[in-house]
């Protein structure tokens, strides 16, 4: 049985959390969240100790909980990030030089075994990836639609901002279109459980989704041009500058990460 996946975050659910919940992080300025994401990306890139990375990940998990967001959903949404980690770090755990854990497995290519260094690397990469994944989801689930649209319009150059704004608006429509097409096919007795024998059905559904998107874009063009579209979608929202205490938090995060990198990682003398 194939439906829309529950291990890929549904943008409608993410937006519903942002619009209908009112947790502590909903009150935080969206620019502050963007700043913190940047600091976290820098931190997981330069931090070089598993304990530090695990501590950072634990902190972000606590923040996720404080934002009153569901841990159970988060576990499901970890499926794809973990797949990426396993696909890169999995083979490395065997190849990484170091002391083998337990016995070695004999293969035609020689003996292979997971090493302690390989295992540590696997956990490090997991913490690095999941820290930012968790905070990105936290930020997405606590930032309102109009604020996200405003920031897209401010951060991206034209015409990318126009494309991004239309994408954001129509993602919800396209999801419903795809869902309707899947439901309609199921109600007519379609079977999605095996790909190869149903490849034409898949092609038709995905093709109709694309076709529907294109035809919606053509209708949209007519309505946009009729309303005098001149290459700029007008945004009526506004996201104010972060309050001073949030600016201090963001600046402090960067100072801490850069300071650690300079002193502990790159060993710059003071």
């Amino acid at each position, binding site marked *: 049985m194939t439906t829309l996946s529950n291990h890929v975050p549904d943008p409608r659910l993410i937006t519903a959390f942002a619009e209908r919940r009112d947790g502590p992080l909903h009150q935080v300025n969206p620019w502050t969240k963007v700043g913190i994401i940047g600091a976290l990306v820098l931190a997981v890139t330069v931090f070089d100790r598993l304990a530090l990375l695990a501590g950072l990940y634990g902190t972000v998990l606590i923040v996720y909980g404080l934002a009153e967001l569901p841990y159970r959903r988060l576990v499901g949404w970890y499926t794809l990030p973990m797949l990426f980690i396993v696909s890169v770090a999995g083979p490395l755990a065997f190849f990484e030089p170091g002391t083998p854990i337990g016995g070695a497995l004999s293969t035609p290519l020689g003996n292979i075994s997971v090493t302690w260094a390989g295992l540590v*690397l696997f956990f490090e990469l997991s913490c690095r990836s999941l820290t930012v994944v968790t905070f990105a989801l936290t930020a997405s689930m606590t930032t309102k639609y109009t604020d996200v649209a405003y920031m897209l319009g401010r951060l991206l150059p034209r015409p990318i901002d126009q494309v991004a704004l239309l994408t954001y608006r129509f993602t919800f429509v396209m999801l419903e279109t795809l869902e309707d097409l899947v439901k309609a096919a199921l109600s007519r007795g379609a079977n999605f459980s095996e790909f190869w024998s149903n490849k034409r059905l898949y092609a038709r559904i995905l093709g109709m989704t694309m076709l529907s998107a294109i035809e919606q874009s053509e209708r949209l063009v007519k309505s946009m041009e009729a309303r005098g579209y001149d290459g700029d979608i007008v945004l009526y929202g506004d996201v104010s500058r972060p309050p001073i205490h949030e600016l201090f938090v963001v600046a402090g995060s960067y100072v801490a990460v850069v300071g650690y990198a300079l002193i502990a990682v790159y060993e710059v003398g003071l």
Partner: protein
Amino acid sequence: MPHIHLGEGSFPLWALVLWTLIGTALISTVVYRVRKGGIKTHQIALAGIGAAASFAIFQLNIPVWGGIHMNLTGLVGIIAGPLLGAIVALVVNVFSAALGHGAVGLIGANTLINASEAIVAYYAFKTLIGMDWDVFPAGASATTLGLSVGSFLMAAIIVISGVNGSALPRGDLTIAVAGLAGLNLGVAVVEGILTGLIVQFLASVRPDLVGLTDRDTQEEATGVTA
């Protein structure tokens, strides 16, 4: 996955900066050419809603090898063209990163990979159609070729960058990443066949969409519904 999104923190800082700069250079070139050539409203709308469809299609679980997800980057390239295809790749990567799929810091690297898939698929499709190939084999081959190029680029990016915290020599890393690239090539064939069938379907109802007839000759919408 037809293209692996590299995890956050996988690369050392210099590589993060390098791929971000190269990705920015690519997108800056695309934006410059789009602005210089002038972009029409229908192209913006097509790219925006095409990206939304690509993003939505990713939510569908395809039951191959336990379940795979596709963005149909090759199809987007064939329909939207190389310039808008690259912009769509960036936008889809930005939205994917916001939902925890992909990496915020590696948007530059991921955009390079996905844009290369769209660009190669577009030019390969045009070339094959120009050589009088049928729509299905042309779409399937062009997409498989585009995704294969993306897979090799992804592997090259990992090998050049090295993995953060790993002491593995580049030669051994190449062997480790080769398995990943091989898996991607398998998925590229699946997505290539699916895209070929989709292009065949689109060509049967709207041949102008895949460049088989002039866009201006196609006025009436087909009225697709569930």
